[in-house]
């Protein structure tokens, strides 16, 4: 048996930079009320959402990703040629093949970076981050770009009262690179496929193509079941991630949960007994639920407004369709 030389990675990994892109068009609740029987007050009280962004034809998944990534790369203080891998998490890129990651890697000017898409719904950012950490510490890529991007407006049934107001579009990206200190904690993640029906695409593309259904597929959910799972089970997962990192709620500076619903966020903060000093991301009010993009978008905004600062310790947790989830503690870039 020949001896294989092992790869050599960095001792640890960290998030070095973050960037976001929010589509130009801001959509207030009034626009949603044109297609569903609801009220601004109901939408705000049940979800915390006041406005969301919807992408134009030009604001494609690739275009938004390139914008967000350019900012993340600049924020990390590196150049695109250093990027060894590009991981894109999305459920709203409408070409099965090739992966949109390859186009993004090329447009950014990487030097033939490995590039692929993953599908992990609203946990996509945490899944991508975990892969990136592995690649950096294992030595397959010196720097990895992780992108969460969605055009959920394309998958929204504007006549569905349970979801029409919920979703938004946008892209968020981080650069993960080497670190001398641990700066991304152990990931607590998993899937519960027995609950795959609670958030899903209405029908497969093939049913639409065959004309079996006339309505373009959209994302539907059993709102209460998802809400129950999120407030009950996900608070436990968040706590496990804290424990795994050897930290207590007091050690945290920032909490960045997936921006699914303000009520879920408030409930988690209560259950986790987060102290007053912990800054909580509430980006959902003006962004809606952007699935895989929500955590990096919220992270970028907290840093941009000064509500959080570089070096802060943040608990991040994503959860959604699958059902899938991923939580970890990170040092903010």
């Amino acid at each position, binding site marked *: 048996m020949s001896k294989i030389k092992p790869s050599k990675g960095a001792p640890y990994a960290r998030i070095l930079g973050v960037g976001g892109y929010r589509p130009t068009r801001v959509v207030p609740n009034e626009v949603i009320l044109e297609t569903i029987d609801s009220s601004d007050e109901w939408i705000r009280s049940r979800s915390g959402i006041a406005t969301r962004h919807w992408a134009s034809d030009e604001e494609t998944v690739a275009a938004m990703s390139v914008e967000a990534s350019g900012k993340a790369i600049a924020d990390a203080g590196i150049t695109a040629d250093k990027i060894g891998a590009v991981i894109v998490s999305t459920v709203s890129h409408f070409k099965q093949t090739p992966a949109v990651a390859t186009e993004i890697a090329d447009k950014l000017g990487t030097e033939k970076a490995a590039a692929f898409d993953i599908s992990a719904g609203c946990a996509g950012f945490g899944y991508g981050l975990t892969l990136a950490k592995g690649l950096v510490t294992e030595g397959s890529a010196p720097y990895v770009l992780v992108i969460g991007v969605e055009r959920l407006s394309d998958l929204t049934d504007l006549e569905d009262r349970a979801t029409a107001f919920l979703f938004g579009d946008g892209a968020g990206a981080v650069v993960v690179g080497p670190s001398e200190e641990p700066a991304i904690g152990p990931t607590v993640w998993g899937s519960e496929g027995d609950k795959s029906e609670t958030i899903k695409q209405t029908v497969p593309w093939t049913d639409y193509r065959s004309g079996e259904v006339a309505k373009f597929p959209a994302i539907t959910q059993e709102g209460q079941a998802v809400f129950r799972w999120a*407030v*009950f089970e996900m608070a436990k997962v968040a706590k496990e991630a804290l424990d795994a990192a050897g930290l207590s709620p007091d050690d945290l500076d920032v909490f960045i949960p997936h921006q699914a619903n303000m009520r879920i966020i408030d409930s988690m903060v209560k259950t986790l007994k987060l102290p007053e000093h912990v800054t909580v991301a509430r980006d959902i009010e003006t962004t809606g639920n952007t699935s895989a993009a929500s955590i990096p978008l919220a992270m970028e905004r907290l840093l941009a407004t000064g509500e959080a600062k570089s070096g802060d310790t943040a608990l991040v947790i994503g959860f959604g369709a699958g059902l899938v989830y991923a939580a970890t503690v990170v040092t903010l870039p």
Partner: protein
Amino acid sequence: MAATQEEIVAGLAEIVNEIAGIPTEDVQLDKSFTDDLDVDSLSMVEVVVAAEERFDVKIPDDDVKNLKTVGDAADYIAKHQS
């Protein structure tokens, strides 16, 4: 040991107080969660989850809809607790 109806109502009162900020003395058998106690459909899910933990019962989503009043919930818990 199974809780008495009095204990269940007292427990529910604490839960509703914690989740919706309603004074515990307002939580009476005949009170409707949504109409009287400011517990909307999502807060109700939180109440149910807290009640499941506290009283060691399972309250499936489909049954939650039928729990209109504090009395409904107390009866349900009394009947289903192990």
